[in-house]
């Protein structure tokens, strides 16, 4: 019952969603709208799970004086400090939004920008022509780099047309094949979940 009941409830929830979205009679009751609002509420009620998890991990690290435990204090102070602030003040109040723009902003942007460095070393190491396949990958990357940065159009007038054709034909065809395939894979997984065949999220992969 501890394992089967949640799976059955999940199957019922999934069947409910499909029924309310496709069939005129069920859809006309408007029950899907209420269900959507309620499911949002259930997600929100679980919003603290990562918060609690981090608290446990870092309290334990401090308690056991693990290596680098001092940084755990930084993390907990930042986390509880900011959450506490937002408990009393709206996010648009001066102090929370100052922290948002001047502390979170630069750190998040630079973290994202760091990837520019790693991309360069990946380009140096990984984009080497070993066979026809890696040659195609490299050539397509080079054409797109010059095309999207408006450099290509200055070198040769037809460059933008070439990029447009590549986008319209091989890129559309190739990505469409991947996306339709991934959609079939996702639909297959959804059916496996609803039939109760796929139950690794219940703790043991083989049932």
């Amino acid at each position, binding site marked *: 019952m501890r394992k089967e009941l949640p799976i059955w409830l999940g199957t019922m929830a999934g069947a409910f969603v499909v029924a309310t979205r496709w069939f005129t009679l069920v859809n006309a009751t408007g029950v899907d709208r209420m269900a959507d609002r309620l499911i949002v509420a259930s997600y929100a009620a679980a919003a603290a799970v990562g918060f609690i998890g981090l608290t446990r991990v870092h309290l334990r690290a401090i308690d056991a004086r693990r290596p680098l435990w001092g940084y755990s204090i930084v993390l907990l102070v930042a986390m509880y400090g900011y959450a506490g602030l937002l408990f009393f003040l709206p996010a648009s109040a001066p102090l929370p939004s100052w922290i948002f723009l001047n502390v979170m902003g630069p750190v998040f942007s630079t973290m994202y920008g760091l990837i520019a460095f790693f991309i360069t070393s990946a380009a140096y190491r990984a*984009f080497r022509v070993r066979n026809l396949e890696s040659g195609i990958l490299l050539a397509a990357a080079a054409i797109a780099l010059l095309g999207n940065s408006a450099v290509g159009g200055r070198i040769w007038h037809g460059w933008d047309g070439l990029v447009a054709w590549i986008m319209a034909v091989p890129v559309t065809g190739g990505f469409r094949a991947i996306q339709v395939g991934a959609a079939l894979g996702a639909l297959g997984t959804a059916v496996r979940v609803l039939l109760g065949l796929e139950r690794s999220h219940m703790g043991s992969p083989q049932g």
Partner: protein
Amino acid sequence: MTALRRLDRRWLYLGVLLITVAAAVWPLRIAPRPTRETRTAFDLAQALQPGAGVFVYVEYGLGSREEMDPMLAAVLGHLADRGAHIVIAARSPEASQVAETVMGGVAARDPAYAKGYGQTWVNLGYRPAPDVALRAATSGIAAAYNEVDYAGRPLAGMPILQALRALNRTYFALAYAFDSGDGFAPMIYYVGTPTGLPVIIGAISMEVPLLQPYLAAGQLAAVIAGARGAAEYEALAGQPRRADVLVGASAMAAIYVLAVMLLGNLVARRP
């Protein structure tokens, strides 16, 4: 050559830093020729009647502001020029504050928007399980967003949501998603395809190839492509020119990365 083969990657990093510093100290402005896609996006907004409803879904957060802020500002500025009524929603807490900042800047330039909150525009903010909230908005915005806006003010008294009740073709003319990768699919799945509302994606340059199948199938009305698309849009719509320097910087970056790739291949070729 042997030294190059065992090249410490930090030398490559130094090159990246030098290129970007150079681009910041001596900015290179490149105004690209407008592509057909950007022109389509512009034409759709240009055709709006004053008071037409427009839904703007902001997905990108703090990390993508550099590429996306100019584009969002250019499109919002153009929509304000056309007198559109703008409903903003966000996919994450971060995105909702980013949207508020950018729209605040745009609204300040136009009296109808500077004093028109709740009348000419509204920011709904973010709700947990954003896909479900977005889907729910197609049959009723106020209920989907729990009757409050991003700052917790009640939606009930706002004239804009009396006129634009649900996110579908009856009430809206266009839907936008300003996206750094996670927002376009829900926009197509739960809004564009079921309601038939024309969807325009303002995309980071990274995801533009990914959108091609949807664009070709007519599931998207238009795509504005990264910093380059932003620069093109600014030129078309007569908005402040902020993206040209980004295009210049990315041109320098493209040449540097191509050189690095070439070097990598040369090093590998030599016996």
